[in-house]
């Protein structure tokens, strides 16, 4: 009987910890966002975070997008040629890239690159008293560190995804025309006939949501780092894992909302 009580108590503790953790995260996000509406706003910090998100992530996102587009074209051709449906390849490539792969792959790449760097930087600031020092210098750490990064994430990831979309479609185009023998003009015409403005818009909206989630998890985990180097390492890992999972979960939710009918 006592084992059963222990089991239930353990389960209850886990549920309570999860709910309180979700509450803390939601509160952290709301406070961070609220600072965007109240001056002062630290433009230099925003510019620095935006540059980190958008510019320095460009190579890895570009490479990921271009190779993904190429692989989709190849794989689609292998499957679709069995049913004489090769003409759908351009549509498959553009819809896959614009609706899903562009935002999701860019999100995952940026989560690994920028989310980790954010958590490590803010975590180091936490364990070396730099965040406490901000407080003693009339500066709210949420306003100085978190709010500019959240806005940078929301604005920068859609820009990256525009580039990823173009390069992903270009990758499919190159493989289809050079290797698979498609006519370039027919491929381009087919691409534009398949893609609709809503596909691009929703892809960019997904990217903005993913950018927010990546910045939020980087800031939240870094801000709550404890201990020394090990604590910062743990928070960095947690930031990347949580951001990656949230990107995938929210991708499903947003796809269900916009494309399920």
């Amino acid at each position, binding site marked *: 009987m006592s084992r059963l009580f222990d089991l239930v108590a353990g389960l209850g503790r886990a549920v309570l910890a999860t709910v309180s953790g979700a509450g803390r995260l939601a509160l952290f996000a709301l406070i961070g966002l609220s600072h965007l509406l109240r001056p002062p706003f630290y433009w230099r910090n925003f510019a620095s975070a935006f540059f980190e998100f958008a510019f320095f992530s460009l190579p890895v996102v570009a490479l990921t997008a271009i190779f993904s587009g190429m692989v989709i074209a190849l794989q689609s051709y292998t499957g679709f040629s069995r049913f004489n449906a090769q003409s759908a390849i351009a549509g498959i490539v553009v819809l896959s890239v614009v609706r899903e792969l562009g935002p999701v792959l860019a999100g995952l790449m940026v989560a690994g690159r920028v989310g980790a760097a954010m958590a490590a*930087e803010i975590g180091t600031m936490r364990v070396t008293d730099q965040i406490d*020092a901000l407080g003693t*210098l*009339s500066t709210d750490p949420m306003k100085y560190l978190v709010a500019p990064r959240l806005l940078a994430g929301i604005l920068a990831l859609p820009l990256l995804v525009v580039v990823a979309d173009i390069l992903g479609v270009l990758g499919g185009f190159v493989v289809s025309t050079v290797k698979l023998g498609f006519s370039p003009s027919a491929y381009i015409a087919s691409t534009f006939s398949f893609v609709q403005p809503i596909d691009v818009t929703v892809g960019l909206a997904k990217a903005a949501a993913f950018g927010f989630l990546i910045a939020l998890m980087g800031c939240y985990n870094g801000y709550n780092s404890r201990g020394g180097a090990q604590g910062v390492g743990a928070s960095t890992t947690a930031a990347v894992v949580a951001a990656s999972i949230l990107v995938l979960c929210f991708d499903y939710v947003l796809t269900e909302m916009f494309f399920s009918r």
Partner: protein
Amino acid sequence: MTVPKIRIRGLCKSFGSKRVLDGIDLDVEAGTSMVVIGGSGSGKSVLLRCILGLIEPDAGRIEIDGVDVIERSRAEQDAIRARIGMLFQAGALFDSLSVWENVAFGLLAGRGARRMSRDAARVRAGEVLAQVGLDPSVGDLAPAELSGGMQKRVGLARAIAATPEILFFDEPTTGLDPIMGAVIDGLIVDCVKRLGSTAIAITHDMASATRIGDRAAMLYQGRLVWQGAAGELLDSGNPLVDQFTHGRREGPIGMELRR
């Protein structure tokens, strides 16, 4: 009767089951320096962080100029904090900023009349760096390019840049050689006198404590077990203080393995 600059009554703080501060009563008169000594983990840093508002105490009152700071609104607490400068144990310099930007941070971030333009703040940073014995050209360096002693001086410059009424020093000489420790102590005494500030320093460096402090207090197991003139530290007559200040293995303070 004059109101103490800082008055603490019944201050308590626990982390989980561990009671770190257990009913602290402390007065610090305006223009004087109080040194709080105590072993590692005795709650000295928690005490400072409670006064600064970085940690919320469980109970008690903290008054600055007779005003209880705990019950104040966020804006009022910020205004009170703007009157306090702090030198952190490891300097806590912002490594993404240059030295002069670190020193001038409070001036650039200040509100209203306290806020300075970047040009004016840079000039002020150079002046304050000179006051702590650093060439203003150091201002262009990154904190990581400085030695430990220089980082402490920059931290001190940042703490005094906005001419605060109250200064806190958290282990100001930890990690420094004795000569550099004495230099930092000398700078602290000069700065406190020049600004007419009220200071609280926490340390377990006895030489530093006697150099910096006018008054001293010892924190042990969350309580202040002794208060007196800093000059009496080495001959207090209190067995706890005597054991601590003379670094004796034998005495009432046992080695705390786990609490």
